[in-house]
């Protein structure tokens, strides 16, 4: 999955600006963190591993749930493409 080309992503502000529609999306903290990892060319599995390691969670399922929810939301908003 990759960010669509018409988007400007700014991690510092937690925003995405869609230049084709002139629409600004504000990200929540989790979404911003996941999108930053994606923007750094990490795969879905790598993102999960990085977050599990960062938050020192033994149970992966919660992280997977967060990531899946975020990806779903990004796709709905037209932020990501395959």
């Amino acid at each position, binding site marked *: 999955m990759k960010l669509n080309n018409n988007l400007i992503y*700014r991690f*510092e*502000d937690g925003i995405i*600006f869609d230049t084709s529609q*002139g629409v*600004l999306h504000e990200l929540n903290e989790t979404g911003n963190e996941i999108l930053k990892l994606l923007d750094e060319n990490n795969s879905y599995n790598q993102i999960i591993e990085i977050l599990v390691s960062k938050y020192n969670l033994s149970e992966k399922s919660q992280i997977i749930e967060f990531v899946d929810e975020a990806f779903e939301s990004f796709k709905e908003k037209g932020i990501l493409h395959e």
Partner: protein
Amino acid sequence: MNKKLFSPLFICWDLTYRCNLKCIHCFCGELNTEEYIHNEQIDTKRIIEIIDELEKLKIYSLEFAGGEPLLAKSFYEILNHASTKNFKISLATNGTLINDTTVDKFKKFGISSVQISLDGHNKDLHEYIRGRNTFYRTIEGIKKVVDSGIQVIIATVVHKKNYKYLSEIANFIISLGVNLFRVQFILPLGMASHNEDMIMPSHIEKYEALEKLNKNINVIENKLKVILPCFYNKKTELENQNSNGCGAGILQANINPYGEITACALLTNKDWVAGNIKDSSFEDIWRNSEVFNIWRNNYRLNVECKDCSLVDICSKGCRAMAYLNDEFKTSLCLGE
């Protein structure tokens, strides 16, 4: 959205108000005299320093405008320096000074798009506000940039004579090989404030213009993408929609030839100057200016807007227009 961003995404830099034309609607036309121009444009060294700062601030897009930016002192030196940074660089010009040499430089310095003003599909409509002997020179300029492969945006100011012909203008633009069409409305500023009767279409005429454009087959089939003013709305049913309204001071900032920073180019009144890059960093002005804070805090969002069911669509309209009109609403207010 009133969030204060780390830095704006878009900067428009009016490098000079000098211009080879004397358009009767120009917001800065009154400043296009030797007396004013003598005092403008900060030195090139400082411009270069600010460009370096803008890169550090992760500005996405830098547009050079004016006046006529091709007449700015050291323009190509500035452009050359900007081209070494990670910006999307664009230019807004009247097109009459574009020749093979300028286009070669645009390509060399990585300009990604050039906005050229064209106000009619024929000489009479265009020259009504731009002046004599401008139409064919502009067309030549457009053709040269199109042939170079650089993206061209045609910007048309809707005026009293051309408002009925936006669809014809749209077809003409397609025939020139351009597929981006920016529609602009005149604000009662500068030269326009002296010529309102001659040039300013009425509220109804503006709607009529957009309705005709909306029915244009090239627009319907998306062969021509229409870019409406930032505050425009879904009521036109044009696909181009902006749910954030005016981005002035929030997503974007303007630098004028004197080095003054404002939320948008049209806020020329001294009350809205947030600071000057001659004596402050851009970052400091953007983050700490009291003027910006006031501006971002829903400046003049009056009771009427607060209660309006359409406020989420129009996002309070053009704030510069609201300020200029002193009547809170924009000239395209959709409220009942």
